[in-house]
């Protein structure tokens, strides 16, 4: 902030163009036809003061930087013309550039109090009609004592008068290029001094503070450029004191504070000349005066939230981002350079370059930053870059993933995102050497240098991919199905217990066998019938007889070996009809005979049918008896 002081220019009184020189030029070039079509026509009306008292006189000048014709001055109905029209003409040549200045002036005096407007003057310049702007003159009452009656030596009112006179004739303006910028958008604040008095010396009294801004001073040329500007019809000389580029850092209302300048002015002394020499050279005095610019209020807009990129880091302006990898195929231990560069106009110093995820397994050195930023009238311009030096230590394929740089362009009011990458680096194991990648066969059996696993970052763990949803508040434990499943083993056990203790013993006992004797026997007969069909007569007869003996063994609950014809006879006595018993024995004998002797006439089909019916009959009679 202090450097503003050293930058403060010394304003030298502009040299008045001497009338003599101008007249000489008129004589030399006056008759020449000079084309002035190359420049803009400026036709304006200028007064030397716009606040006058009744009786005071002032000058109005209509000037143009070209030849004119058909000049019509406005009516001066509220004023009295003391002198005029006075015409003057001048030619200027600067660096081969010729300028004609022509002017018509009047000296007027107001006749009454009030506000009066001097209307437009018109003229035809290069075939076109031009008009000047009207000028408002305010006339205050009564002739002023001190100025109109210089004979009365009174210093008191004079200094008071000179104070207001000074403030009208010298002031500082703070011009802000944009009073409603976005946060981070550059604006320029220009401090200009307007003066009509001679400045002997100046000194910076107060350098402005820019709270809420990031500032960058613009270097101004060493020698001050003094130009002319007309304000309310009065021509001022103007010089730029200070120019600052401001980057708002907060949203809301921000204040650009005033700049204060201490000037020493050389004023004409109106006192009566004391000596002959005084009146000859003119007398003057030096007055110290404090000038202060007004403060400007700036309303800073926030950046729009809509479409704001996720990685936006506050870059505002117009940029281009580039990323470059100097080679993408290297050998192990060869250096690789990765350069990231952002170029353009905007708040270059106020944001960081995007973060790049470089391969974690590389040896990476701190980046070399290279900023080439210059301040122009409109903001910062240039480039900033970061250069990373990486050395791959293990072979393989590595990638620098895609990353992006986003900025906000205040002109288009849009965000722009540039995607960079991805970059792939192929790292080859050096020829003739064995890769030092773990697992590679190492001829000299040197142990692989082990290292701890680098923890790169900490983050929360990934989400679960299985839903396992249940209705809210329901829980397997305590639900009806839980209790049902809890009781199930006990129930199954008791079912099994019942089956094992009650059903199984019955099924295996002799009594149970006896009950199912007929069923079992019929099964054996069915087998016999099958053998018969297959013409397997021997097996048929065996099954036939076995069926009968098995039936009685089960019925009598004895061993099969104990079943004889006598025991059967005894068992069946008084239980079964005599005829059935006889038929049974007849059937048995018939088959036995056939088995040992071979009777061809025996009808086997009829026999098996009969024995089945017979056993069924016997069984039902035994059951009835029981």
């Amino acid at each position, binding site marked *: 902030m202090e450097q503003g002081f050293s930058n403060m220019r010394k304003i030298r009184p502009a040299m008045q163009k001497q009338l003599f020189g101008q007249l000489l030029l008129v004589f030399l070039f006056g008759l020449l036809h000079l084309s002035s079509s190359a420049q803009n026509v400026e036709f304006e009306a200028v007064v030397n003061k716009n606040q006058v008292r009744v009786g005071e006189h002032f000058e109005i000048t209509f000037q143009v930087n070209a030849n004119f014709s058909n000049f019509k001055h406005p009516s001066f109905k509220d004023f009295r013309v003391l002198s005029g029209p006075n015409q003057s003409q001048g030619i200027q040549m600067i660096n081969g550039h010729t300028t004609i200045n022509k002017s018509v002036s009047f000296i007027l005096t107001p006749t009454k109090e009030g506000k009066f407007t001097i209307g437009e003057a018109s003229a035809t310049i290069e075939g076109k009609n031009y008009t000047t702007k009207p000028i408002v003159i305010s006339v205050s009452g009564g002739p002023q004592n001190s100025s109109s009656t210089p004979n009365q030596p009174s210093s008191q009112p004079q200094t008071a008068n000179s104070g207001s006179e000074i403030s009208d004739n010298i002031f500082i303006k703070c011009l802000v290029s944009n009073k409603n910028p976005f946060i981070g958008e550059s604006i320029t604040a220009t401090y200009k001094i307007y003066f009509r008095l001679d400045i002997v010396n100046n000194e910076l009294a107060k350098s402005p503070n820019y709270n809420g801004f990031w500032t960058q001073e613009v270097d101004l040329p060493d020698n001050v450029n003094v130009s002319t500007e007309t304000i309310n019809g009065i021509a001022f000389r103007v010089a730029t004191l200070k120019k600052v580029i401001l980057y708002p850092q907060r949203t809301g209302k921000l204040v650009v504070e005033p700049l204060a300048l201490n000037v020493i002015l050389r004023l004409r002394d109106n006192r009566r000349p004391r000596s002959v020499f005084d009146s000859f050279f003119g007398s003057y005095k030096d007055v110290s005066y404090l000038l202060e610019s007004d403060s400007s209020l700036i309303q800073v807009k926030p950046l729009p939230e809509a479409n704001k990129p996720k990685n936006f880091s506050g870059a505002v302006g117009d940029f281009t981002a580039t990323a470059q990898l100097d080679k993408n195929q290297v050998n192990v231990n060869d250096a690789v350079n990765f350069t990231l560069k952002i170029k353009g106009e905007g708040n270059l110093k106020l944001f960081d370059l995007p973060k790049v995820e470089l391969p974690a397994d590389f040896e990476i050195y701190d980046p070399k930053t290279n900023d080439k930023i210059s301040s122009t009238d409109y903001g910062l311009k240039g480039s900033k870059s970061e250069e990373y030096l990486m050395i791959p230590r293990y072979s393989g394929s590595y990638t620098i993933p895609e990353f992006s740089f986003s900025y906000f362009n205040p002109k288009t009011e849009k965000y722009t995102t540039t995607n960079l990458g991805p970059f792939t680096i192929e790292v080859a194991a050096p020829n003739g050497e064995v890769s030092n990648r773990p697992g590679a066969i190492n001829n000299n059996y040197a142990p692989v240098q082990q290292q701890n696993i680098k923890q790169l970052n900490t983050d*929360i763990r990934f*989400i679960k991919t299985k839903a396992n*949803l249940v209705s809210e508040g329901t829980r*397997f434990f305590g639900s009806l199905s839980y209790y049902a499943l809890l009781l199930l083993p006990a129930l199954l056990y008791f079912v099994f217990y019942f089956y094992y203790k009650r059903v199984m013993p019955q099924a295996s006992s002799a009594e149970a066998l006896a009950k199912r004797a007929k069923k079992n026997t019929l099964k054996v007969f069915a087998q016999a019938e099958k053998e018969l069909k297959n013409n397997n007569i021997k097996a048929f007869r065996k099954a036939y007889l076995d069926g009968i003996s098995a039936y009685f063994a089960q019925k009598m609950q004895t061993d099969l070996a104990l079943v004889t014809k006598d025991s059967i006879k005894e068992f069946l006595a008084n239980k079964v009809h005599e005829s059935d018993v006889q038929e049974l024995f007849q059937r048995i004998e018939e088959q036995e005979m056939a088995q040992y002797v071979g009777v061809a006439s025996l009808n086997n089909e009829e026999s098996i049918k009969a024995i089945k019916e017979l056993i069924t009959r016997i069984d039902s009679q035994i059951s009835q008896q029981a």
Partner: protein
Amino acid sequence: MKNLIQYTVVLLVAVLSVLPSKNTVAQVDHSTDLFNQATLAYQNSAFDSARAIYSAILEQGYESANLYYNLGNCYYKMGNITSAILYYEKAKKIDPSDDDITYNLKIAQSAIVDKIEEVPTFFLVTWWQAFLNSFNVNEWGAFSIILLFICFLLLALNLIIQNSSIKASFYLTSLVAFCISLLSIFFAFSQKHKITQSTKAVIFSPSVTAYSTPETSGTKLFVIHEGLTIEITSTNNQWIEVKLPNGTKGWIEKAHVAII
């Protein structure tokens, strides 16, 4: 033989009839589809839309430890640490045995303002808690059923086996299984009690002052901040008495907390 099959069939039908019906199964499938959509969104870093889908599933009346955990992750990624902690705590309540939930909760809690040292508990209590938390309520329940099956299976085998030494060892084993099964039921009950009798809450206001009585005229005791998990020890109208992890107690307004 026929009787046994009949009995079993009747029993199974009875058990299945109390299990969730087909209709609700279809709804769960629909919500699971939504869940998978949210997983995709999360993978594409669209955390806000993933969060919206998870919330929609919650609104349909479904929940699971995984659902709460994923919601917590979404909030964490969106920078809302307080909500992340709330949902991690909800997930942890349902499934205290999950390692991921505990880990993420710890990470989220490292980002809150208040750092309170927990009162060191007697190591046996810590062990007991850790043992209880090694399974969630449903796992303890399932465990009890499996053990009961084993118990009765061994008893049934004992009816068939004649060898007396094997019989004795089977009896002993079934007895042990029965006892552990009863213990598991007890553990499941204690876990269920923890879930249903919600006594914990997360502070949601940036700064909360605790008073000695349930009114603002009471003595100001301490100030706690967003994201802190506290225990609710009693309630009085709009006020709750909270107990900090370090054992300090004070009254705060109910509106400042979200109950887990």
